[in-house]
């Protein structure tokens, strides 16, 4: 089989995105360290970005709309902006909580529970 002739289509990119998203979801569910959970969250946002760019690359049709050519890329750019803001605030929160509790284990963050 000649791999060079085998073109990669939209569904392959979507499967890669789905794989990354599910790995991130598993990390959010299974991890105990809050920084690991934030990392998994970043993986999920990244997977969504792959989907945005892939749909923009493969499904944009020049005959239908000429104006909205890079809309998917712009959406991915905004996702990156929000992810950067989220990780900055999230890590600041982690450091504050660590200063009060001496712990990064989410199982111990239960002082809103009664």
């Amino acid at each position: 089989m000649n791999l060079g002739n085998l073109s990669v289509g939209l569904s392959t990119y979507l499967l890669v995105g789905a794989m990354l998203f599910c790995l991130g979801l598993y990390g959010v569910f299974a991890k105990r360290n809050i920084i690991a959970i934030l990392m998994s969250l970043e993986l999920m946002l990244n997977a969504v970005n792959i989907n945005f760019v892939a749909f923009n690359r493969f499904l944009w049709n020049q005959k239908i709309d000429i104006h909205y050519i890079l809309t998917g890329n712009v959406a991915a750019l905004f996702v990156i902006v929000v992810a950067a803001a989220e990780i900055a605030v999230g890590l600041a929160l982690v450091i504050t909580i660590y200063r009060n509790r001496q712990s990064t284990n989410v199982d111990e963050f239960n002082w809103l529970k009664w």
Partner: protein
Amino acid sequence: MGTIVFFIFAILAIAAASGVVTSRNIVHSAFYLALSFSGVAVLYVLMNADFLAAVQLLVYTGAVSIMVVFAVMLTLRGEVSDSNPENRKWGWGAFISVLLFAVIALVVLTNSDWRVLPSAWTSGGSAEDMSLLLLSQFMIPFEAAAVLLTVALAGAVILAKGVKENQ
């Protein structure tokens, strides 16, 4: 050629992502995260999104990963080789993740609208094209993103620095 590059870097990104969620050492997780982000940047290049690939490398690999490493170093205590444990219900998490992946894969593989191969790409994904769109069609979200970044910066500084008690 593109196919081989795609599979190398897609597998790299996925393997690094699984390293993030399975590694017992959280410092290794943080480095795997940077590797995964870099693999995704190559996928952006293959999808003709040059500017986004550069932004991915700058913001994710350069800034987010380093910030995560800083937070890890500031909050590490105890044995580093067991700093990233799973909780008791990780089996349910794995089950739900696999189930979700199966559903998504089923939808993707059975949808014939999405079985498209790349057509020739004439118009770019460069900074010039993106900036034209950002400053005309998406001007309000662009400004809102600027405000969001400023607020997040100030909020992160205030949160990390803490407020003085006796004032």
